[in-house]
Structures are given as structure tokens and as C-alpha cells.
């Protein structure tokens, strides 16, 4: 069963008389447990495609299906619920909640899901250990380096074991060693937890981890090959 299916997906932005085609009739199917990288130059539509798949942005036209359910017609609350239970996000800018500690940031999604406190704590401590942050649980984002924040963000994305992780340039602000650790972690999770990964990147090192590489230019998929 496919994890993601996009049919004639378009996302246009209008600036005065100009129409910017961020996604231009994209057809895409991603199966469960795939490890996919979206590559392409800036403005090619990688982030817009991830946003559309994650229900963060409404397409101008076309269809988006996630786990067998069409999501482009859902309301805000239904989309939020879908993201809460099925998708983990890793953003380029980490996007941690500044008033919460590292552990609380990781527990946030579980807390919204209603997981009981004991289980939340056990899982968050375990995942902190997995990303090598177990001694920094009480630090707030401002007290962490970029790499540490990204590891917390990754831990937050995967802690509730989502079916799919969408990562937008996850290594863009990381040094090469940290980036390598992060990608190793993604691969391990993909293999052990059967999590589908869709990663947008410019980074050749990241692309080398992909088992399927999709190239985009001007909002269109120009290459799609197994790697």
C-alpha cells in the first residue's frame, strides 16, 4: 500500500499578474517504508511538496492521499489530527518550542496525543539516549547548539513512532559529523521501525543515503530513480 500519492498536484502562488508555479502537476507515489530524497535547486518545489504531503499547505489543485486517505479536502482540525498521529516533521530551522525544555519538546506530541506521563517520560528519555542527548533533558532550546537542537527536533519527530517522517533540509545547519550521525539515525529508524522517510535536500551526502532519489526543477519531477 502506498504511503503517499499525489495526483496532478499543483500549488500556485500569485504575485500581482505573475503566477509562480511551485508545484506543477506533480504525480508521485511513495510506498510504505521507502527512504526517499527530494533534490533540486532552491525554488524547485521540494519544500512545497513536503508541505502539501504533510497537510501544512493547501494545494491549488490536484489530490494528495496519505495512508489511503485523501487529505487535500480535510479541514484544519482533521489535518492537525492526521499530522499528530501519522507524520513526524523535521524542519531546517529546528522549530523547537522555546519555553519548553528538550525533554518537554520531545514529549509535546505525545502529550497532545494523550499518552500517560510515565510512558511519555520513559519514551522521551529513551529517544534522548538514542540521539545522544540524555544529559541535556532539562535544557531549553536557547541553551543548545544548532546540532543539539536538530537532534531534539528529530527525537520529537520520531518519538511517537509516526508512519512517515517528512524532513526539510534536516542537515542544512549541521556540521558534517553531526549530519552523518543524523542520517545514520534516520536509516536505522527506517529499517527498525519501518518508518517512511521523505527528505528534501541539496546535500550530496544526504542523497547518498537515499534508496530513491527524486529530482525536481521548477515545480516538476524531472527524475525519479532507485538509488
Amino acid at each position, binding site marked *: 500500500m502506498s504511503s503517499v500519492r499525489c495526483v496532478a498536484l499543483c500549488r500556485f502562488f500569485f504575485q500581482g499578474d505573475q503566477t509562480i508555479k511551485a508545484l506543477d502537476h506533480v504525480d508521485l507515489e511513495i510506498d510504505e517504508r521507502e527512504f526517499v530524497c527530494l533534490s533540486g535547486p532552491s525554488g524547485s518545489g521540494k519544500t512545497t511538496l513536503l508541505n502539501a504531503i504533510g497537510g501544512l499547505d493547501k494545494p491549488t489543485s490536484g489530490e494528495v492521499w496519505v495512508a489511503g486517505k485523501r487529505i487535500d479536502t480535510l479541514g484544519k482540525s482533521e489535518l*492537525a489530527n492526521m499530522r499528530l498521529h501519522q507524520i513526524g516533521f523535521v524542519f531546517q530551522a529546528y*522549530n523547537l518550542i522555546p519555553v519548553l525544555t528538550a525533554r*518537554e519538546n520531545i514529549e509535546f506530541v505525545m502529550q497532545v496525543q494523550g499518552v500517560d506521563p510515565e510512558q511519555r517520560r520513559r519514551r522521551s528519555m529513551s529517544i534522548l539516549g538514542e540521539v545522544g542527548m540524555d544529559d541535556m533533558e532539562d535544557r531549553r532550546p536557547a541553551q543548545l547548539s544548532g546540532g543539539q537542537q536538530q537532534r531534539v527536533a528529530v527525537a*520529537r519527530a520520531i518519538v511517537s513512532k509516526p508512519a512517515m517522517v517528512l524532513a526539510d533540509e534536516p542537515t542544512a545547519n549541521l556540521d558534517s559529523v553531526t549530519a552523518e550521525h543524523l542520517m545514520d539515525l534516520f536509516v536505522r529508524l527506517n529499517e527498525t521501525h519501518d518508518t517512511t522517510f521523505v527528505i528534501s535536500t541539496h546535500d550530496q551526502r544526504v542523497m547518498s543515503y537515499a534508496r530513491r532519489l527524486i529530482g525536481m526543477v521548477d515545480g516538476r519531477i524531472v527524475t525519479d530513480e532507485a538509488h
Partner: protein
Amino acid sequence: MRVDNITLSLAWRNLWRHPRRTWLTVGAMVFSNILLVFMISLQFGMYRVMYDNSLSLITGHLQVQAEGYIDEPRMRSTVPAAGGLANALRQAMPANNVAVRAMAFALVSSAERSLGVQVVGVQPSYEPDVSNLPGLVKQGRFLKASDERAAVIGSSLSRNLKVGLGDELTLFGSGRDGSFAAGIANVVGIFESGSNDIDRSFMQIPLTEFQEVFFMGDQGHSIVVMTPDLFELEPAMSTIRSIVDADGLVVHDWDELQPGLRQSVQADMASAWFMYAVLIVLVAFSVLNTQLMSVLDRTREFGIVMALGLAPIRLGRLVFLETGIMAGLGLLLGVAAGSAVVSWFGFHGFTYPGLEEMSARFNLPGRIYPSASFASLIWGPSVVFLACLAAAIYPAAKLLRLQPVAAMRAA
């Protein structure tokens, strides 16, 4: 509204990200709540003084009268054996003050002039307990039980009749039985009530004298009762009803006896409420400003938590919760500080330059004592609380329209 730990935790921490902003907003709420608690308590205290002074001049809290006398005060509509009945009431209600009165219109003549006057027969021993008019005698003295042919009159009446202390007045009128009534009284006191109507047209003589002149026998026109609390009349009324079981007698409370009084207080209240409403609206706008700023500051964060799966409605709750915490703090601190201020002034009294001198002229207390009650302490702060929550509707509604991607792009 279901509030989970994460919403509460986020709300609390968000508030203390900008402690100065939070405290300034809470401070505005506290200030307005203190002001409201004090002003409303002072207002209630002033109304109590207004009621007391207005009712203790003539009306009293309750009156026993013949049925129909209130609408058509005829000489023949009397309370029989009024003195005995008043004694019975005094015995049954020791905490209440009781006095008999009788009233008639008469032509009162001095050596130079004649005027129509309301002549009131009073019990000199008991009248000071139900009326503050005896305390308003500025020249001479009030009536004594032993007085014969004595009268106290208003200051304007004394001027109009051109009489002073010791001068003789002649009364001409109709007796209870319709016969010609005439009497003589010497002025022993002149009062200044502060009411021109009363000072111009009132004359008091001993009840026994009145009964003799106007052929009243042992009858009176009303038995005036002053209770310990003018808002707790029901116990006294039911006691009086159980004693006054004769046909044709009724008990009226002050609201029936002086119907304009409550309306004038309510009219004053309405104008005060308008002022309070302006204050509350100002506080609500300050909260609206704070919360709107706070929401705009955190647009990106809201986008993040929406991306993570928090439904927009829960973000709305978060804003309401933050506002509720601030308004709750404002309410608690405001009521506590307001209560302290009211307690202090309730003990020491509130005055301002000139009030004591002015009040003394009308036999009024020179200080106003705020009247603290559950309503005066809670009403204003509760409305502030609700107004603050209402002010959070717009910022919360803005969140419902937020798009995660656009929000995350916000600086």
C-alpha cells in the same frame, strides 16, 4: 472547556516570557479591581447613608396606618389606641424603635402673618428614636414629654411667620370629628432639616396636645418603626402583622411610603455603572492589546505547534487560558487589596475637605463608611474578569484562521 496539562503549562510559561508585560497587564486589572471594589463599596455605603437620612427624617422604615391612609390621608383614617399599640410593639420588638404620630393641616397664625402648615403630633420621648429631626433643632430645643402648648417649627416657617423662640402661635383647623379645632403653642425650637419643603411647612407639637386640639382621643395616624436594618424588614413586618390584627390597619415599608427614594438611588447607580463600564472597557482594551501583541509575537511558534498536530481550537484555548490566568491573578489580587482598602476605610471612614462641615449642618455623619458586601467585592472584579476573557476572543479568533506554513514563515 477542557484544559490539559500541556496547554496549562504552555500558557503559564508563555506569560512569564515577558514578565514586565504580564505584570503591567495584571497591574491594570488589579488597579481597576481595587478601584471598583472601593468605589462600589463606597457607593453602597453612601446609599445606605442616603436611605438612612432620607428615611429617618420623616418616613421611618415601616409605618402602621389605617388602610387607604397612604393614598388619601384623611383625619378620620386613624390608628385606634395608638399609644397602647405602640407600647405593645416596643415590648414585642425591643430592638426596634417605635413612635406614634398624628398629622393635620392647620392655619397657623403669628402676630403678623398666617400660613397653612402641616402640624404633626409626636411623642417627645420616642420621636428622637425614629427621626433625626429633633437633632436638627438649631435654636432652642426639641419638645419634652412635660411640655404644654409647645411647638418646634422649621426655620423658613419661622421667618415667614416672623416668629422666634417664645413667640405664640395660634392653630385653626378641623378636628377628627369635623368640628372646629383651635389651639395655642409657643415656639420652643426651630429646626433646619436641609429640606426646604420641611423647613417651610412643618410644625411639631406633643401628641397629647395634638389629640386634645384635634379631638383625636387616643388615636394617631401612624406608628413609625425604625428597624436595625432597613433591608431586613420582613421579621419586623411579620411581628407587627401578628400584633396589629385589627381590621383596617396595614403595615407599609419604606419603599411604599417613599417610592421615589429607591428610583433616585437606582438612577444614581445607573450613572455610576456607566463610569465603571468605561473603566472596564479601558482595561479590556489593554488586555486585547497585550494578547494581540503576544499572539503576533508568537505567530511562528503557533505555526510550529500546528504543524506538530495541535488543532487551532486548542491554540484558541491557550490564549483564553493565558488571559484567564492573568485575569484570575488580577481578580484575586484586586479583591484582596480592594478588601483591605475597604476594611481600612470601613473602620476609619472616608472623608474629603469640607464634607464634615457640610454634613454637620444637616445632622449627617461627617464620614462615609464603605459598605463591604459579597456583591460589592465580587461584582466589579467579576465583570473585569469576563471583559478580559471577551477581549481575548479576537486574538483567539485570529489563531483559528492561521495557516501553519504562513505562520512558520513569520519572523
